[in-house]
């Protein structure tokens, strides 16, 4: 029987150290490893650690529900680009993604009556830049290329458009 309170505390400590950029799966693996390492010690003095009910509940969720869900990924970004067509827009956006360590999972681009529209689904699992940095690069590139570039996590689209 896992000590949920402890798992919750470890999870919180790991998030506290790694900050928002913490990858869910990495955190989960870390917490599992740490817990396994100290489990024998914990089992030895198996008292109720106390604490609040809210914490326990979330601690449990941390190890079970997360990570395995197929409902949109927090590791994937939807990059949408709109504006007046010009040469070099696709290259400019792709270059930023490449430099940041994001790979392109899907791409769709059209030009209708001189209006450029592109949507890229990018996988940021191995990204070396926080989303804020990526967005700043997109903003600067967008100014230069004369287009608006938006980057939003994929799970938002899944939440809004899939029942």
């Amino acid at each position, binding site marked *: 029987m896992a000590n949920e309170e402890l798992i919750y505390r470890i999870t919180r400590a790991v998030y506290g150290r790694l900050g*928002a950029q913490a990858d869910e799966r990495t955190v989960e693996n870390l917490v599992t490893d740490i817990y396994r390492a100290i489990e024998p010690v914990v089992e030895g003095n198996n008292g109720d650690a106390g604490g609040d009910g809210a914490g326990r509940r979330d601690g449990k969720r941390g190890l079970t529900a997360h990570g395995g869900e197929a409902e949109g990924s927090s590791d994937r970004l939807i990059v949408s680009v709109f504006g007046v067509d010009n040469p070099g827009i696709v290259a400019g956006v792709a270059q930023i993604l490449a430099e940041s360590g994001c790979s392109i999972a899907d791409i769709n681009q059209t030009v209708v009556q001189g209006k450029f529209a592109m949507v890229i689904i990018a996988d940021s699992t191995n990204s070396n830049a926080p989303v804020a940095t990526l967005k700043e690069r997109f903003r600067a590139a967008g100014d230069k290329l004369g287009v608006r570039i938006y980057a939003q996590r994929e799970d938002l689209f899944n939440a*809004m458009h899939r029942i």
Partner: protein
Amino acid sequence: MEYSQAEILQTVRMTEMEHLDVRTVTLGLSLRDCAGDSIERTAERVRAKIERTAERLVQTVDEISSELGISVANKRISITPAAHVATGARSVADCLKLARAIDEAATHVGVDFLGGYSALVQKGWTNVEDVFLASIPEALATTKRLCSSVNVATTRAGINMDAVARVGRLIKEAAELTRAEGGLACAKFVCFANAVEDNPFMAGAFHGVGEGEAVINVGVSGPGVVNHAVRHAPRDMPLHELAELIKKLSFKLARAGELVGREAARRLGLRFGIIDLSLAPTPLRGDSVAEIIEAFGFERAGAPGTTAALALLTDAVKKGGVMASSAVGGMSGAFIPVSEDAAMIDAARVGALSLEKLEAWTSVCSVGLDMIAVPGATSAETIAAIIADEMAIGVTNSKTTAVRIIPAPGRVVGDMVEFGGLLGTAPVMAVNNFNCADFIRRGGHIPAPIHSLRN
């Protein structure tokens, strides 16, 4: 591609152009374990607990906002009604020590408002609550982020008319204490019937005694999104089709809000509480509930028929949201705060929207007479009587109603009172000044209503 271009475009348009935002991420925090014999010790424990629990709230929510590309307008805290915590308070000065400690903690963690300087007195008040109620005007006048509420009525208990009369007086006092700012303290105070325990919106948020240790509650918004859709629908679209359209949008708004809330709760290691579906306007043009109503086919908000339109709107928002999430709570309706809604201000200024029509609206939408400025000469009894009417609507219809009214000192009908920021600018509205003082002076209690023979 997994999503059609139209779907992606819709989301981008909503978040970037139509002001789809999460209006507030509110951390609900129990302070019941902070109550002590001495108010000094209680205040210190309260300060420490708020600062400890909410330390990463603002930063975490900002990060999520950036990743999802959804702006989160406000980060807030709601606490256990402070009157429950102020057990050691013997005087107004004691209560003010607690108020200031709470306000300083709110400033320290960077939230814009903290709600819960509150008391629930629908049946009566204790000795501590007696002192606590007396402290509310000064507490609001001398703090920046503190919000206060008093529940004076419930469907089960009826209306405590002694409390209603007292709230009328304390609103006048709060207005006088902040005379130079147009009575600003009153904008941070709300009087409730059937107050909800998990409301994330200010000024009425508090963390109910039935709640857990700490939760993340989310208030979604999106009048801009609904407004855009209704305006672009054909002028002859039948109303049931409009309702369907609004339902679908509300589903999407609720889903986006829940995602933000659950993510925030996960990262903060807290439980996710509820999502409040209320359409809440901001002073920005287009981000207005009154404009949605007008788009139904009215020259101005307040015209005959607008109560029906608002009923449809509120119901459709709820139905879409309930389909989207199993954690719907709070107020969940449509807010009609006059000073915070540009089209409502216009409607009031041209005489289309009166206090009486607003009162009628509140019978079909959440929440009540909200952010209404009235002439400074309005008596405490008249304010209490306006509150009594509103409480009666809530109690009889088993819904939450509220009054946030500002008797702006020295101002007369037609003046504008500037409160700044989200609180907006309120046009001073006319009040029916026929005397009601004898009714209020009777005091006592209006018994709880019967629940059969409903007509």
